Every structure is written in structure tokens, then in C-alpha cells.
């Protein structure tokens, strides 16, 4: 009895299904790569599939975390991919112009410059959405289209290769035997969680997304909040841009972060945040992003023929979404649940049921 109730409470938890899918996907790899979970030391750092999932998934996690807040306000940001490209391009082109590419000051300045550009993009998006009242999808489409042009303008259409050890650290380096990017992601996620849950920002964001007019009438400065989340999202995309360009030590204005916005949105939704705005879950988003990255890695390792990559991806996305849909679960598993546990409803006490699980 207690185990069944605990199990039911667990399955009701909003992270249960995404995590279950993540675990399932990881397990799928075992028959194909028996030592999939093995991690060993190579060249003084940890090496293994799990490490590379986190390493290559880092930019997606970052972008998706930023995207979560935007979506929570009822918006959407299509420009993140372009921002990734601009940031990487600007930073790399600045570094490549330096005489000593290893000089820390120069690298920091370059990164600052790149992130500044990202913030400017975010401000512009925020301005269009919050101030001008333009629909987010179209407001951010502008930078999505023009931004890549700007990135290519900066790189002159070429791939800029740099050779800077300090810059390499962010996206490709290791620290304490772990990929440095894990620490960056952890820091950004921690800051985001702190910012939204330790302060009232999360509440206000959810309120704006849940009912914009009501929020205005309780005196929430929704314009400011919206601008803030777009800037934050762009900043996250900017950091992801640094990471992507640092990972390969090259800035590719055309391909860096291509279609990352779709994956990010997908991650947010898999994580349980509604695209209509309102309630959001950063933890869910991180899991969602890991699901997507694991899926990508799985496609590479289990030897799916290239032409069926997308079909495979579509199938997984559909399965994840179906599993997450309470309606689907009720229809498919519902019948069985009723027959196996008929005692539970009858035994339900007349007094109010136990308090619901709170995240």
C-alpha cells in the first residue's frame, strides 16, 4: 500500500516522465556500446560517453534555460541561434586580431564584447516585444534573419580559427578533470534558479505569462520583466555562443547554432513548461535538453542510417510527448490502473486527501 502510494506520488511528479525517458534513452545504448557508462581517465581528464553528452549538451542547456523564462512570460525567442553566431563571431574575430591570442585580458575583453552584443540583441527583442507590442515570434524573427548576416559580416563569410588556450577552456577545456563547460552550465543554472526562486522574479514572470492583464493591474511592471527575460535569454545564448566557438576554436557565422532554437524550445516543452506561458521549471528544462542531446548521441552511436535520423528523432519526440500527456496515459494505462488498484479509491478517506507534492 505505502509503496503503491509512493509510486503514484512519484509518477505524478512533473519531472518523472522526462527523467524516465532520459534513462530509457541512455539504456538503449548499452547493446550497441557495452561500455557506454564507462568513464576513464585520459590525458588527465575524465572521458566517456556521459561526459561528452554533458559537454556537447552544454550550449543547448544554456539556450534552453534562457528560453524557459521567455516562454514563461508567454513569449518565444527565435533569434537565439543568430545570437549564438554573432557572439562567437565577434569574440573570435577580436581574439584573432590580437597579437598574443593567449593573453587573458584580451580574451576576457573579447568575451565581454561578444556578450555585450548578445545583450544588445536581447534588448532589441525586448524592446520590440514589450515596448512596441509586436508578437514575439515575428519580433525575434527579425534578428533570426538579419543576425546571421551580421555574424557573417563580422567573419567575412569565412570560418575564423583562433588559437587561444584560455579561450579554449570555456567550451573545450577541462577543470578538475571535468569539462569546464559543466561548471559554466552549473553556474548559470544555479544563478537562474536563485534569481527566479530566491527572489520574486519567478513569481512575477509566471504571473505575467499566466495573465498579462491581471499582472498589469496588480502593478507588475511587465514591460521591464519582459525586457529582462529577453536580455537574459540572449545572454544565455551569448554564453552558449562562446562555448560553441570555443569548443572548436573557430567561429562559423553561418552554421553556429543553426536550428538550436527549435531544439531549445523542444527541451523546454519536454521539461514540462507550457508554451502558453505561466508555470515554468528550470530543472525540467535541463532534463529536457539532456534528453535531446542524449538522443543525438544515441543516433550517432547506434548506427542509424543518416537518412532515417530525422524519422528516429520524430519518433522519440512523439513518444516523449505522448508519455507526458496525462490524457494519453489515462487512455492507455488508465484501464489497467483501474483494474489493478481497485482498493485505493474505496479506501480514500473522507477527510481531505494528503497535501499535493510541491516543487
Amino acid at each position, binding site marked *: 500500500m505505502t509503496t503503491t502510494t509512493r509510486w503514484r506520488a512519484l509518477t505524478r511528479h512533473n519531472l518523472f516522465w522526462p527523467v524516465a525517458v532520459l534513462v530509457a534513452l541512455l539504456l538503449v545504448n548499452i547493446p550497441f556500446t557495452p561500455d557506454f557508462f564507462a568513464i576513464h581517465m585520459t590525458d588527465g581528464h575524465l572521458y566517456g560517453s556521459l561526459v561528452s553528452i554533458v559537454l556537447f549538451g552544454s550550449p543547448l542547456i544554456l539556450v534552453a534555460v534562457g528560453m524557459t523564462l521567455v516562454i514563461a512570460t508567454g513569449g518565444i525567442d527565435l533569434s537565439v541561434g543568430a545570437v549564438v553566431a554573432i557572439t562567437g563571431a565577434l569574440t573570435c574575430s577580436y581574439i584573432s586580431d590580437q597579437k598574443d591570442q593567449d593573453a587573458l585580458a584580451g580574451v576576457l575583453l573579447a568575451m565581454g564584447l561578444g556578450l555585450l552584443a548578445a545583450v544588445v540583441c536581447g534588448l532589441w527583442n525586448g524592446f520590440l516585444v514589450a515596448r512596441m507590442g509586436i508578437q514575439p515570434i515575428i519580433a525575434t524573427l527579425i534578428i533570426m534573419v538579419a543576425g546571421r548576416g551580421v555574424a557573417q559580416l563580422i567573419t567575412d563569410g*569565412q570560418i575564423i580559427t583562433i588559437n587561444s588556450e584560455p579561450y579554449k577552456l570555456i567550451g573545450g577545456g577541462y577543470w578538475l578533470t571535468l569539462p569546464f563547460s559543466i561548471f559554466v552550465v552549473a553556474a548559470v543554472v544555479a544563478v537562474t534558479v536563485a534569481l527566479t526562486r530566491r527572489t520574486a522574479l519567478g513569481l512575477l514572470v509566471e504571473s505575467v505569462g499566466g495573465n498579462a492583464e491581471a499582472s498589469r493591474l496588480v502593478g507588475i511592471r511587465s514591460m521591464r520583466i519582459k525586457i529582462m527575460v529577453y536580455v537574459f535569454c540572449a545572454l544565455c545564448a551569448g554564453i552558449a555562443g562562446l562555448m560553441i566557438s570555443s569548443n*572548436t576554436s*573557430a567561429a562559423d557565422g553561418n*552554421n553556429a547554432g543553426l536550428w538550436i532554437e527549435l531544439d531549445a524550445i523542444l527541451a523546454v516543452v519536454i521539461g514540462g513548461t507550457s508554451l502558453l506561458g505561466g508555470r515554468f521549471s528550470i530543472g525540467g528544462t535541463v532534463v529536457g535538453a539532456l534528453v535531446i542531446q542524449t538522443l543525438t548521441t544515441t543516433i550517432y*552511436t547506434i548506427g542509424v542510417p543518416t537518412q532515417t535520423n530525422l524519422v528516429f528523432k520524430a519518433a522519440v519526440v512523439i513518444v516523449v510527448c505522448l508519455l507526458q500527456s496525462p490524457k494519453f496515459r489515462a487512455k492507455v494505462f488508465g484501464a489497467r490502473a483501474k483494474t489493478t488498484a481497485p482498493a485505493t479509491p474505496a479506501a480514500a478517506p473522507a477527510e481531505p486527501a494528503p497535501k499535493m507534492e510541491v516543487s
Partner: protein
Amino acid sequence: KEDDSAGDSAGSGGGKKITLGFSQVGSESGWRTANSESVKSAAKEAGYTLKFSDAQQKQENQISAIRNYIAQKVDVIAFSPVVVTGWDAVLKEAKAAKIPVVLTDRSVETSDDSLYVTLVGSDFTDEGRRAAKILEKVIEKAGLKGNVKIAQLEGTTGAAPAIERAKGFKEVMDAEHKDDWKIVVSQTGDFTRAGGKQVMAAFLQSNPDINVLFAHNDDMAIGAIQSIEAAGKKPGKDILIVSIDGVKDGFVAMSEGKINAIVECNPLLGPQLMEVVKTVHDGGTVERWIKTKEGDFMQDQAKAALPTRKY
């Protein structure tokens, strides 16, 4: 907008300046940008008025660009087709308007051969074949014994260079190395460094015994090299690498011993194109297929060739 009117003097035979409409595929790679730049600077040098448009990888954009060139009554139309098929209708319109069409970079499939005059460019399938050939040399040089386990990094799925390079490579492999060569894994790296790096990292997990990498372009090879190093292996030694394109960074990697051989695919076909345009415009005859000057490079040639790389 009338521009470049100052450069009139260099026009052909003192007559009216030639107007060339050029529709580029896009700017998806450094190779492509170098190609565009080459066309632009060559046109300027030759004193032609160049109408340039970028199709952003979309065939429909190229078609409407060509339509617009027809409406603008340019003298010659040149374009690098996004895909091989589907050009009949618009090329017929060009023909009806008596505007000669020159293809660059790759061919098209048409029902009527008179729809275009000539093709200036290389052949992706041939590049694949050359890659396989040079791999033979590389293996021999490295003294690799036993079975050759190849990992292939494909270009964007569905894109012609990816399909044809793979085809050419396989052709040679099937014909000459049916028993000793095997492609053990093959995935798309989307022609990008990040893609190459990620896919290679996964390959090394699932098939640690790979000893040869064939990448459809240099960028993917460069990305893959990083993954190979991260796995504690030596690119160029533990894993032999052959790639196609010949961009500068590729040559840098080759001179460092990380890539074993590169099959060149030369984007700088602007000057050649301009010559052809002039001949065509003046009513001369040209060959059906004008191949660009390209070479294959092994490691020992890398150092020498590096300074000549422009892009």
C-alpha cells in the same frame, strides 16, 4: 541604380559593357564565400557589370533571381545550381530570351542539352574517387596493415556534394578494396566543425577500433581531429585522415601532420568564368565542361602549398 559606370573603359571591345547575372547558392561555408569573392573580383577586373544575388540555399530563390535577370535583360546568366534537377522551365525562358546560361561549380539534369552552354567547375563524384585513390597512398605510406576500418563523416544529408562524394568514394572502394576496406560507421556532420567533432566523439565511443577517417570536407575533419585528441589518440597516426576541399585551415592541420591527405576542390573559378562569359557573349564556342585546375595533396606537399592558400 547605375553603379560601376566608372569602370566602363575596360569593357569588351569598346562596345557596351557586358552585364552578367550571377546567382549564388548561398554563403553556407568558407568555400562558398571564397567562390563568391572570386567571381566578384574577377568580374570587376574584367570590367563587367555584375548582378549578384544570394539564394540562401533555396532553389526557388535562384529561379526567381534568374527570372529577374531575364526581365532585366542581362547579357549572360551564370549560376551555381542548388540542386541538379528542376531547371527546365526557367532555362527555357532564358533560352527564349536568347540569354546564354553558364553553369558553375556543378551540373544540372535537363531534358534539353541546349539549355545551357557550358559548365565551369569540378565534379563531386570525381572528388570522392580521388579521395579513395589518395587514401590508398596514405595507407601504404603509413604502413597500415590488416583491415582498414573507415569512419565516414558525411555532409548535410541530401546535399549533392555529400551524396556524390560518398558515391565516388564507394565506387572505388567496391571496385578495388572489396575485402580489405570497410566503412564501419557513417554519419552526417553537416559540413561543420562542431558537427564533425560531436559525431567523431560518438564514433570513438562506439567503434574504438576505427583507423581511417574520410571526411567530406576539411571543416568536419578539423572538428574530428579535436575529438580524436580528446580521446587520447593521435590524428594522422592512430587514425589516418583524408578530406576534401583544401581550405587554409585544412592545410594548416595537414602541415602539423594531423591530416594525411586533402583532395582539392577549388573555389577560385572567377577568372575562368569571366573568360567563358566573354567567349560566350562574343558568340564563340566553348567546351561543354571546363574543369577547374585542382590537385591532390599529401602531407609532404602541405608545407610548400600552405602559403599559396588564400581562403
